[in-house]
């Protein structure tokens, strides 16, 4: 089951060109970005609880 549900409003792919990094650092940034996105989804769910 996918446990990283996101709003899809701010996809990483739309923003990764702004980072100017590659390799492991890019992967780390993507992981953090998607963690923030999942937290943002939780924020929205919280507003609907």
């Amino acid at each position, binding site marked *: *089951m*996918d*446990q*990283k*549900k*996101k*709003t*899809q*409003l701010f996809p990483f792919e739309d923003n990764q060109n702004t980072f100017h990094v590659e390799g492991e650092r890019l992967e780390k940034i993507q992981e953090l970005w998607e963690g923030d996105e*999942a*937290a943002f*989804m*939780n924020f*929205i*769910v*919280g*507003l*609907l*609880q």
Partner: protein
Amino acid sequence: MDKKQSRIDNIRKVMHMEKPDYIPIEHIITPEMAIEYAGYHIFDGLWETEKVIDAMRKAVPAFEGDFIRSTFYRSPRYYTSLEAKSFIQSKEGFVQHPEVHSMEDDEYDELIADVPAFLAGKCLPRLYKVFDKPEPYRSMALARGMMSLNRTFGPYNAAMGQLLEEEGLFVLTAASAEAPFDFLADLLRSFTGISKDVRRMPEKVIEACEALLPLMIQKAVVAPPTVDAMVFMPLHMPPYISDRVFDKMYWPTFAKMVDILTQKGYYLYIFFEGDWTRYYDHLVTLPEKRILGRFEYADPKAIKDKIGDKMALTGFYPVTLLAHGTESECIDKTKELVDILAPGGGYMFGFDKITTTIKDIQVNHLNAVNRYIRENGTY
């Protein structure tokens, strides 16, 4: 060992159905109740962060307790800044939840097809009028709402952390999550809406609950799974639905959610609101030694006999007795519940309802009850 750690260790024994050192007491204080206890008007206390902090500083040390379930409150400063329709402060000052909905009955397919997009794009704007503003005011207003949230809960949470540390207390729950059916029934379809849907489109309701499940789990798993970071799950709808609706639409995704969370190591504080007498046989099937079940209207003996060796128990005590009974009636009820629920362990002392006003209790009765537990609740 410090006080807080010994309290956590004792609660771990309760949850694991081992004999604890003593019966833990859930601290009764909520921020709303503390505001009144400290002599502030509820309206002022909920708006002014320094007042709610001062109120908690006065009220928490005034009563016995081994843990607090939550120090969270619905801040009118935050909800008002987002122009919420879902949570509104009454003239008296309490934040109330009117019957509103954010999803129509012909939108199930859209929800099921893409839950996050539907919640973010359709439901949120319908419940928060801030989204109706033209740009750039819409973005600014949303940012202002977040700023209000940070300016309220930044200082408040820091002060609560310090206060609880000083008192050797801790917040028992780290997350609040809903069963998928309850989430659908609350602010999406409303009580009235879901009551029609379960008859007119049961298959869509089932599909929607399944589609919502991953998000409900995601909302629950925000902290590491430890006994002092439980997931709080208040369950709303089962007393109001038929056995058939419960079996087909409520229970499957709720039970799956509980299974997944407990397999991940989480401890759950489940508030079985209302009367669950019809569902005792279902409760037997829930995972063992991971759930603290709080009961509102229930026969404590029947529950203890049926699930008392699997699930830690709390609640049952009618909080109205503290307000309207005599001191000796309050003590008698405490003794009755301790005699039924404490033997062998698996019991924490708590009330049937969450208190929101000081009028719910008489302070001397509460103190007498807590004193009785302290004096007679050791193993």
